[in-house]
């Protein structure tokens, strides 16, 4: 740990930070130390508590107990605004900019310089130029509207904003997830500059290579607790992954033997309005096909197009030899089922019961002339809850009362309940605990063994490599390459995903 460091070097010191949300324990006695002029990696799976910890740091959430020291002073922000004034800036994955305002206005938003109650544009301009120069990007024009900038440049605007605020500590939350390779490299140069100027940086990312490239030390969170911390130089990738998941890889990815059969789904060069573009592929019964790619590569759009939520502009979809009708209802009848990547806003009607959510797509078996037999439905839902092991008070409990993992099981159970033959799973393991993940992998294997076909979209390469029979990589809406899993390595998948198209 940081025991060898001179304590005067320590910029941020969080100790014993604990936070509960109702009965859920989000953080338990978390310790985090960031030195001046270091980039500190915060690693952990989704739901491990990283974002809660950072919310505590920013002031958006108050810890139940624990202490935070910033530069030796007690730091207890009452709001994100107070945190910013104390010198803690956050750069989130989703940028926090007003698209219709200029670069300058965005940088100075909330910290405008005034003279006689009026905006002091001249003084502001000086500050903005200063900040952009510090970042090494004086070429950005302060009067450009933010919406006209690339995502990478928008991020620079956010960082400049932090500089003008005199930030001492900057938190980067998955900053590269929507950047091109060049933009990411540019960002790394900026981060190194900031580091060298003595600012402390917390860097959150899933990409271990990236972390290795830019960070010096790491802290791993698992289930709201610190699983380990240390120098990156002395830690292997395997060790860090083991710390993240808390169990060996074999335990995490149970395998169920299954064999591919006949082709059930075939896509012939289908294109949507923007994405996907010209995607062809064949999926067999008993096969799990993984789709890898960066955020925005068009993976979700591919699933949505296949499922009829987005329009097919060109190309043809065939399910078991039949062309399904062009809306979700038709696709469901043809045997397709989609689990959305976004449980909250799309996948589930949070306020409705488990029973409702599970049966919305197929109420037929319980209805006569439009009237429902609720007792019959309840019995069926009870069975399904046992089959996929949903832990809940009962079928009538609202979905919002369940944990993320159990919610995901409800979404999966819906697709199974509608007797889908082809399952389109979009990030089905995102934001759920390790135990449930493992259950979902097993379920996928079992389904394949029963002859169902699965398309499995994920941003987490280890699970794709462990679970899938074949993996396709998407980029810019195109399906770039499909190979059997044994022919891929993690590096090759990444290289294929980030490759810039030369067309």
């Amino acid at each position, binding site marked *: 740990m940081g025991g060898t460091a001179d304590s005067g070097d320590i910029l941020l010191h969080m100790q014993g930070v604990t936070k509960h*949300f*109702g*009965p*859920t*324990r989000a953080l338990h006695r978390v310790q985090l130390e960031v030195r001046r002029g270091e980039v500190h990696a915060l690693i952990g799976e989704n739901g491990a508590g990283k974002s809660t910890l950072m919310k505590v740091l920013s002031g958006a959430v108050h810890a139940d107990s624990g202490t935070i020291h910033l530069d030796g002073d007690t730091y207890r922000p009452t709001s994100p605004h107070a945190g910013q004034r104390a010198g803690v800036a956050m750069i989130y994955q989703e940028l926090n900019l007003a698209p219709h305002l200029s670069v300058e206005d965005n940088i100075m938003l909330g910290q405008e310089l005034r003279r006689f109650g009026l905006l002091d544009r001249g003084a502001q301009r000086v500050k903005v130029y200063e900040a952009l120069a510090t970042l090494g990007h004086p070429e950005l024009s302060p009067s450009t509207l933010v919406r006209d900038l690339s995502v990478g440049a928008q991020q620079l605007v956010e960082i400049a904003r932090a500089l003008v605020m005199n930030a001492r500590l900057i938190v980067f939350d998955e900053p590269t997830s929507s950047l091109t390779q060049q933009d990411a490299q540019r960002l790394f140069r900026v981060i190194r500059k900031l580091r060298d100027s003595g600012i402390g940086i917390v860097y959150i990312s899933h990409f271990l290579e990236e972390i290795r490239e830019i960070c010096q030390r790491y802290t791993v969170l698992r*289930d709201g607790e610190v699983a380990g911390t240390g120098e990156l130089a002395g830690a292997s990738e395997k060790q860090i992954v083991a710390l993240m998941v808390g169990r060996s890889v074999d335990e995490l990815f149970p395998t169920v033997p299954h064999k591919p059969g006949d082709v059930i789904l075939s896509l012939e060069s289908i294109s949507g309005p923007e994405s996907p573009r010209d995607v062809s592929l064949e999926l067999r019964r008993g096969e799990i096909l993984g789709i890898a790619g960066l955020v925005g590569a068009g993976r979700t759009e591919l699933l949505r197009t296949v*499922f009829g*939520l987005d329009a097919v502009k060109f190309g043809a979809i065939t399910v078991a030899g039949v062309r399904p009708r062009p*809306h*979700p*209802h*038709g*696709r*469901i*009848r043809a045997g397709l089922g*989609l689990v*959305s990547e976004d449980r909250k*806003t*799309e*996948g*589930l*009607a*949070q*306020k*409705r019961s488990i029973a*409702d*959510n599970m049966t*919305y*797509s197929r*109420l037929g078996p319980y*209805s006569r002339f*439009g*009237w*429902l037999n*609720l007792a019959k439905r309840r019995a069926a839902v009870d069975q399904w809850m046992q089959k996929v092991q949903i*832990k*809940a*008070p*009962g079928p*009538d*409990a*609202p979905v919002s*009362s*369940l*944990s993320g*993992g*159990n919610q995901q099981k409800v979404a999966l159970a*819906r697709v199974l309940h509608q007797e889908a033959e082809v399952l389109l799973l979009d990030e089905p393991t995102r934001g759920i*605990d390790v135990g449930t993940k493992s259950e979902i992998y097993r379920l996928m294997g079992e389904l394949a063994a029963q002859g169902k076909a699965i398309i499995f979209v994920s941003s987490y390469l280890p699970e794709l490599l462990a679970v899938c029979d074949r993996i396709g990589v998407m980029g810019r809406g195109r399906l770039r390459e499909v190979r059997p899993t044994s022919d891929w390595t993690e590096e090759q998948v990444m290289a294929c995903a980030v490759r810039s198209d030369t067309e």
Partner: protein
Amino acid sequence: MSTDNRRSSKNEPSEAVTHNQRLEALWNLLGPVIALVCVVAFFAIADMIFADGTFASWRNMRTVIVQTCVVAIAALGMTVIIIAKGIDLSAGTALALCATTLAWGLREDAAYRAVHWTNFANASVSLQEAQEARAVASEKQRLVYLDALVELRRERLLAVARGKLTQLAAAAESAQGPARRKASADVRAMEQRIEKLKDPEFQLKVDPNWLRGVPNSPWTAPVAVLIGVGTGLLAGFFNGLLKSSLRIVPFIVTLGTASIYLGLGNLLSGNVPIRPGLDQVPDWISGIVSNRADALYLGFPLGVWLLIVLSVVLALVLRFTVFGRHVFAIGSNEATARLCGINVTATRIAVYTLGGLFVGVAGLCYFGRLSTGNPTAGVGMELGIIAAVTIGGGSLSGGRGTVIGTLTGALTVAVIDSGCNQLGLPDPIQLIVVGAAIVAAAAIDRWRQGGDEE
């Protein structure tokens, strides 16, 4: 209780959670009812202290219930719309439009007119017009066509009158007691009219007396009701169609159609409320929300029974049909509904059409109250209707609302109105109290919801 639960597993829900959920469901249902009981109790006590103590009487309670009928029926439809995360600002003017078309149907003797292309009043007026034209026309014009026209119209009116006479005679035959006396008087009056019309030189003067006691065709009342209720159905369908095809938020769509329906009503009525003759409005319609002893069946007028039946049916539909489930699905998360293959467009159009149907029935009751179709009377009524739903726990953010809640919401508003009246509080105070009740109900709801989320 939640602490020992945490030890077993992070995800395992405790019995306490189940219990809380049941309590919450019960509270959701009973909350508005308790509020209503409190309001009633408050006014009853205040009334005993400050006024004559008749507020809590059965008679007054019945009056309150009868008064709330129109709003309550429309609010049932609004409940479905609000559950589906919609809103219908056109409910007020649509309701008045329904009452207006219904009044028009009765006044115009719609069923008779549909078959004969005229009715007694129209045939009379056109004869009079022809006669007046002949009186001031030149000799030549008379000879060329006006004599013939008058003759033609006289013949036609005679035919209508003979038809009505047959109908009157049959009615007189089967009537009993005082009704029989009135019927035979009507028969005699009609016979006299026919006698007069037989004289080619008879100059017709259409006045209320000439039109009095002329019955509508027996089919007119059902046809007119069909027109009125059908108007509501169409108005709702149109709202749903616009919302779905143009993809505009329902607030704006119905704000627009509210004005359209008001305009249509004014167009039909010619800016004067339509008031059918006394003999043209059947007793069951004029007594539909009346406290007259002869209009009551088992203690309540027809309108209240209609409200009860519709409430029960709607509650069952919401809970026990596929349609009901889909309405809740769309209201709580439209994206999920799409994902599950629910035909969102069709369901939404059905929701607005159903809302329109209820507006139509409410329009029928509203017409019955005054026997007048006044298109402008509905302006602002939608607010009372929406207030009833929200006081009853319906949420404008969709997915929440109950029939019981809406009924108690409507009753609460009516009780406050009546209670303030009883205490002799002036109108402005009433408005303020009702407004405060709406805000309070929403605030309590918000507070409870906020408590759930954290």
